[in-house]
Structure formats: C-alpha cells, structure tokens
C-alpha cells in the first residue's frame, strides 16, 4: 500500500481507468498540457494524447452536452468543471438532459462530472460552493463526495464505470492536506454505501467530505469529555445509504447532521426527513443540523471562519444534544 494524497488518488483513478478502458476520455478547461487548475489531470494528455484529453472552450454547457452525446455513442466521458461553482452554468443540461434520458427513452448517460467544491481556502463566493442540494431534487443523477484518498480513488473508478450520470465533488481543502493508504491493485468503492469512521454510542454525527475530518476532530474532543460520537461518512449523497443512516441512529438515538453547504435547503433537510420518517421511535432528542450560515460564502478569512462549521461548533451542538 502506498500513502498518497487525495489529489493524487483522483489522478491515479483517471489514469488507470483510461488505461483500462479506451472509451474513457476527459474533457474540460485547461485539462490538457496544463493538467487542470488543480493538476488533477497532470500528465494524462502526454500519456493518452490530445484526442482523449480534450481542452475545451469556456463552455460548461458544451462540455456536459457533448459528453452526453459521446456517451450515447458508447464513450465514457469524464468532464472537469474547473471550480464546481461553474456547474451552475450547465445546470439545465444536467438536470433536464442527462438526468431524464434513461427514464424517457432508455438511453443511459454514462458521464462523470467532477470538480473542486467547498470552502476554507479564501475562495470567496464563486469558488467555494457545495452544490449537492441543487441536484438532490433531480431523480436520475447520482452524487458522491469522498473524504479520504482511498475513497477518492475508489469512488471515482466506480463513477466512471457506472452507467448513470454521476456528479463527483472533490473537496479542494483536502487535495493536498489529506493522505492515506491506497492499495496497489484495482478496487472500487461502490456508489450508495456510507462508511462508519468512528464508533460511538452517545450520538451519531452524519456527514461527508471535508466535514468528516471536522467531525473526527470534534469526536476526539468529545471523547475527552466522556461523550462517544459515532461518525458516519455518507460518501454517496444520491442515492443516500438509508440503511447505514438508520442503523447508526438506532444505536445512538441521537443524530447530528453536519454539512458545509448553507443550512436552509441543504442536504441536512433530507437527512432530517429520513430520520423523522423512519427513526422517529429511536430518537431521544431532536435532529440537529450544523452547517454554514445562510449567506453567500464570504471571502475574508475572519468572515469565512465565522461562516463555516468547525469542530468547536460541532462539539457545542453535540453537547447540547447529549444533554437533551
């Protein structure tokens, strides 16, 4: 096993899938010789040629739309959105064309749309978004967001091999900060499966992406105070792993939902609804949401720090929850 960064895991997944399957190709802005704004595609054009690593114009709708067309011809395109915020510019193509195609005419769309999401790096209102809730009400799309290098690689491979459109959000805060062990041999992390990152009996922290690490930090602090939190990393946001969610909450009877997007209208609502419906009998306390405050993502570090969830906020909420 080698220890690699989250970013390197993504790069490896792309390279290995392209080597494995000649139908896989990459398109996006600056993905070629430059290797992408964050270097996720570095070296791939050199290795696989210009036909399979395509530098596109600044045209997110053309990127996703042409990927849909190519997938109809049996290809497996991977679209890079330079910052995931620009996925707003192809919202129509994704939600109306890609998501509905199989249902309408049995014409599956095997594309991956990936890009850096999330804040914490002073990116400001247009380079920091967590867009999962924009897409959660559109049946036909799948969504994943890894928190580890292992998952980054395994989920991306699963996404590329999947026959449905998959949005793959990679948290830019983790790119070079997170390193972990990744097997040499080929593996996938199946879509739709969450992972327990820490066992505990007093409350469940349900989260994903960069917030998984925040949850782990909070759990360590809580443990010092005698509170044992179980941390569930969702990994897949659509479909959600309902079983894993209900299992942890049936064990702990207390649920804290942690996500980095803004609070209102976020994925925490869906999680709360699932718990309200199916875990009502288990719950000894209200489901709590810890999320960013309801504003655009501010740029200045003190503002962004106040905006984002952090371990302290999670600890405070968790303590309230266990004292309930």
């Amino acid at each position: 096993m080698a220890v690699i960064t989250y970013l390197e895991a993504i790069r490896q997944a792309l390279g290995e899938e392209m080597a494995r399957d000649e139908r896989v190709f990459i398109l996006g802005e600056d993905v070629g010789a430059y290797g992408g704004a964050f270097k996720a595609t570095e070296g791939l054009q050199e290795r696989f040629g210009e036909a399979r690593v395509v530098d596109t114009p600044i045209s997110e709708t053309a990127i996703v739309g042409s990927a849909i067309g190519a997938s109809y011809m049996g290809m497996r395109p991977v679209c890079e959105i330079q910052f995931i915020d620009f996925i707003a510019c192809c919202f129509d193509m994704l939600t109306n064309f890609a998501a509905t195609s199989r249902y309408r005419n049995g014409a599956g769309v095997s594309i991956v749309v990936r890009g850096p999401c999330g804040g914490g790096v002073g990116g400001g209102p247009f380079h920091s978004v967590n867009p999962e809730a924009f897409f959660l009400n559109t049946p036909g799309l799948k969504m994943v967001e890894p928190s580890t290098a292992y998952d980054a690689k395994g989920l991306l491979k699963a996404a590329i091999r999947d026959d449905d459109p998959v949005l793959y959000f990679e948290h830019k805060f983790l790119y070079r900060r997170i390193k972990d062990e990744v097997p040499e041999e080929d593996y996938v992390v199946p879509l739709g499966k969450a992972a327990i990152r820490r066992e505990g009996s007093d409350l469940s922290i349900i989260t994903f992406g960069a917030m998984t690490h925040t949850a782990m930090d909070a759990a360590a602090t809580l443990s010092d105070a005698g509170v044992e939190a179980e941390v569930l990393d969702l990994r897949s946001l659509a479909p959600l792993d309902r079983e894993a969610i209900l299992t942890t909450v049936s064990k702990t009877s207390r649920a804290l939902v942690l996500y980095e997007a803004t609070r209102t209208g976020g994925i925490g609502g869906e999680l709360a609804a699932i718990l309200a419906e199916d875990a009502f009998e288990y719950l000894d306390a209200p489901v709590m949401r810890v999320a960013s405050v309801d504003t655009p993502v501010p740029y200045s570090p003190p503002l962004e720090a106040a905006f984002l969830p952090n371990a302290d906020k999670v600890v405070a909420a968790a303590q309230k929850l266990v004292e309930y």
Partner: protein
Amino acid sequence: MKRHMTRTGGRSMRNPAVSCQRSAVSYQLTAGLARDVEERLTVLFRQSKVIGGLYRSMGQEGESVATAYALERTDAILPLIRNMGALMTMGVRPREIFLQYMAKARSNSRGRDLNIHIVHLPVAGAAEPVVVGPISMLGDSIPVAAGIAMGARMRGQNMVAMAWIGDGATSTGAFHEGLNFAAVQRIPLIVVAEDNKFAYSTPIAKQMNIARIDERAAAYGIPHEMVDGNDMLAVYDVTKRLVDRARFGGGAALIGVDTMRMQGHAQHDDARYVPKALLEEWAKKDPIARFRTHLLETGAATEQDIDEIDAMTKRFASDEAQLAEDDAMPDPSTVTRGVYAGDDFAQPQVEFVKSPFRS
C-alpha cells in the same frame, strides 16, 4: 441564395438535372408522407387523442426532407419538433410518431415523453441511423449533436451528425457553445438553421439583428450558406456538399434555410400575429406543390404517378395511425421504473421502414 426551381416550381434557368442518385420521386413521397402524418395527427388532435400540443411543420416539410436526404442511412439526426420530414426520410416508421403523440405504452418513450422525443441508438453494425429527439430546452441538442459526432469519430465511425434548429433557438447560449466547440474541434456536425420567420409569436427581427440566419455561423469560422428552403433540390445540393465535406474531415457547417411556418406555433395558436400577405406569398411557394410541378414539367412523373403516390402516403399514414390508436396506455405501475441503470424494463425500439420511401 441557392435556388433551383422558380418560386412556383417551374424549371428555372439555373436548374440542373436532378443531382442526386436517388429518384426525384422519392422526395415527393417523403415530403407528402410527412404532411399526411401531420394531417392524421391533426385529426387525432381534434378527437382529443393527442395528449398535449401538436406542432406542425406545414410548409417546411421540404427542407426537412431534403436536408436529411443528404445523409447516409447510418448517420445521426437530432430533429426538433418541426422535423417530421427528417424523421420520415431516415425511415422512422410513422407509427412511432403516432404512438408518441398519443402517449401510448409501446411508444419509444413508453408514454413518458412528448411528441417526437424519441431516441434510437442502433446496435453495432445495424444499418440504422442514430436518432436523438430533442428535449424541450431549445439549443441543448447542439452540444449533444457535437458530442455524438465526436464520440463516433473516437470510435472510428465515419459519421456525420445533423441537427436542426429554429431561428429562435439560435439565440440560446447552448447553441453558441455547442457550435463553437464543434467548429474548434472540426467535428462533422451539420446544423440546419430554419428561418421560418417566427419563433412562436416573435418575428425573426426581434431574435437577431442579421439579415440572413446563416450569418450566425460567421462567429465560428465555419462554412455557411443560405438556401431556398422550399426548393428541395437546392436544399439537397447545398446540404450534400457540406455533408460530404464534413464526412471527409472538413468540420462543421451551417445551412440557413429560408422557409415559412404556415400554421400557428401549435394547434392552439391561431397565429393572428402573422401578416396575411406573408402567408399568401408563401402559400404559392409550397414545397410539395412546387415539386409536383417540377416533376410534371421535367417529365419525371405523370399526374397519375403523383396521384398514386399521394394516395399511397395517405393510406400509409392512416394505417399507421390506426395501429397506434389500438395500442394500450402505459401501465401506471411502471411509473417508478428505469430511472437508473439496472432497473431498465422493456424498451420499445424505434422501428424503421425501408421501402418505398428510401432507396
């Protein structure tokens, strides 16, 4: 502007011999069939058997047929609602259209999607076209068309994709992004931009500030040409040249067709915003009547031949409609099926007819 016939169908000075290999009569057949299918749909609409709106291509059948004629059977088409002619030309069986419009169980979308929103992705080696019907969001089929042709190229297929687009839809961002991308990548994509004078109620002058719709392509550095859309021979010639060019590596092109939407946007629209004089002028240039005159004058067919063709297409359209009418409505218990892979269920394949509508 390219024109082969005089405006009413007589032989024009520049009229060359029919320049395609296929029999000229088949144009008449196919355009007539497109109109007859729509006529049947109009009857079904009046009988409330069509679900939702009915969009006619009356007056535009000619350009739709003649552009598609320039393709090979295994090329890709991305028609819009008014491209019944293209569908008929590529051999889509009329029953498919009736099934869709009546939202039947065995329609290609299994009653899930509207009118000509059909998709056909042939199995490898089949002598069938790729058909990707539109989604309603105008413009979106242009990037998708680019991707189809690019994907085919990657897979080593020598395929041309043809997408039709209305004057109005050329104002969308998706059109711009898709055609620009195709131009840069030299993708074999032919866009047929239909100036039919209106986008719903909006006259073309409120849609673009250029005199000729084909100038839309000037921003992309690709060949573009304007053609009399109601002159099937001229349309075919221009299109064939650009299709061949695309097929042999020349890249994308745009053909502007000058035509006229002779009915309202949809059946509910009485189109009172269209000046009467404009309709009268264009009525004289009806592409089917014009081609009839042309066939007679050039001796390619007799009155009797054409009457027989007319009777045949009418009968065919009505037989096909009947087959579709007899089909069941979808079973409501299927509603949740097939959103994701692995849960697919009985997908009706688009059926094609070969004869007598295409050589």
